[in-house]
């Protein structure tokens, strides 16, 4: 049998695990002879566990009102919120190396650093291209105030108290960020490229949430 080639999209894999959409392996030779392969993939158990991040995140009415009250968000304000949200998680992760005791917590924090710094770099590059200057909004300022309070709290902790507080905070943070992306940021973005960026980062944020929930479960059960 003639060997075939299949092209899988890692982005599609991310979307799959996060949202159980179709993954479409594309055969680069399809125009010659072979058909494109389309399959609907089952949900792997690990992906289906934890938070099922493809599903809309539910928040309390109080949390929702805080996140959607910026009804007049424009692209400059949305950008400020996304930058603030990423900087918030970066600031939490930077507390980890000298305070955490668990390897899985340290590895999770390192990934948060890499990904959130990466998203901010992409967004900064896009804003430069679009000639958009981020404008602070109550939402972005709230994020900064809240993160300062939480950092003050976590700075006082080490070992298990730090690990459990940090990872609980990560679950909460990513739930709120995901909710904001789905209900406020992505729907209100007007520029196509900004909207695409928000669409593209959603699976990773959802994966972060599911990962944080896994680590939290380990922290709570294997003290």
């Amino acid at each position, binding site marked *: 049998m003639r060997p075939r080639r299949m*092209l*899988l999209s890692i982005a599609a894999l991310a979307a799959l695990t996060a949202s159980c959409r179709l993954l479409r392996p594309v055969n680069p030779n399809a125009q010659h002879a072979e058909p494109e392969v389309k399959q609907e993939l089952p949900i792997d158990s690990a992906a289906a566990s934890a938070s099922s991040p493809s599903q809309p995140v539910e928040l309390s009415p109080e949390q929702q009102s805080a996140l959607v009250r910026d009804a007049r968000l424009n692209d400059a304000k949305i950008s400020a919120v996304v930058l603030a949200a990423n900087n918030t998680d970066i600031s939490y992760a930077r507390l980890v190396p000298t305070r955490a005791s668990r390897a899985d917590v340290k590895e999770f924090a390192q990934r948060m650093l890499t990904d959130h710094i990466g998203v901010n770099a992409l967004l900064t590059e896009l804003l430069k291209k679009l000639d958009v200057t981020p404008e602070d909004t109550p939402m972005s300022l709230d994020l900064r105030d809240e993160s300062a309070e939480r950092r003050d709290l976590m700075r006082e902790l080490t070992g298990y108290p730090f690990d459990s507080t940090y990872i609980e905070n990560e679950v909460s943070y990513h739930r709120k960020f995901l909710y904001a992306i789905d209900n406020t940021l992505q729907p209100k973005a007007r520029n196509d490229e900004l909207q695409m960026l928000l669409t593209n980062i959603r699976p990773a944020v959802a994966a972060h949430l599911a990962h944080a929930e896994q680590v939290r479960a380990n922290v709570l059960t294997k003290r």
Partner: protein
Amino acid sequence: MIEVTVGDTVRWLNQDPLRHTTTSDTSVWSSSELSRGEQFAFVAGKPGRYGYHCSAHPVMRGTLLVR
């Protein structure tokens, strides 16, 4: 699940803004962290069911079935 035949080349293309890996759960293959636009190829040499994941985001998982 992706189903291929022995001898097929499976190629993963990262179209995501963040870096990802494709890593076999049983160490049959493992890519480095792929940036956007980078690819990794694996020739399916033996029949079997292979689970794989992204080592950077362990909840991102898939299955490759080689017949």
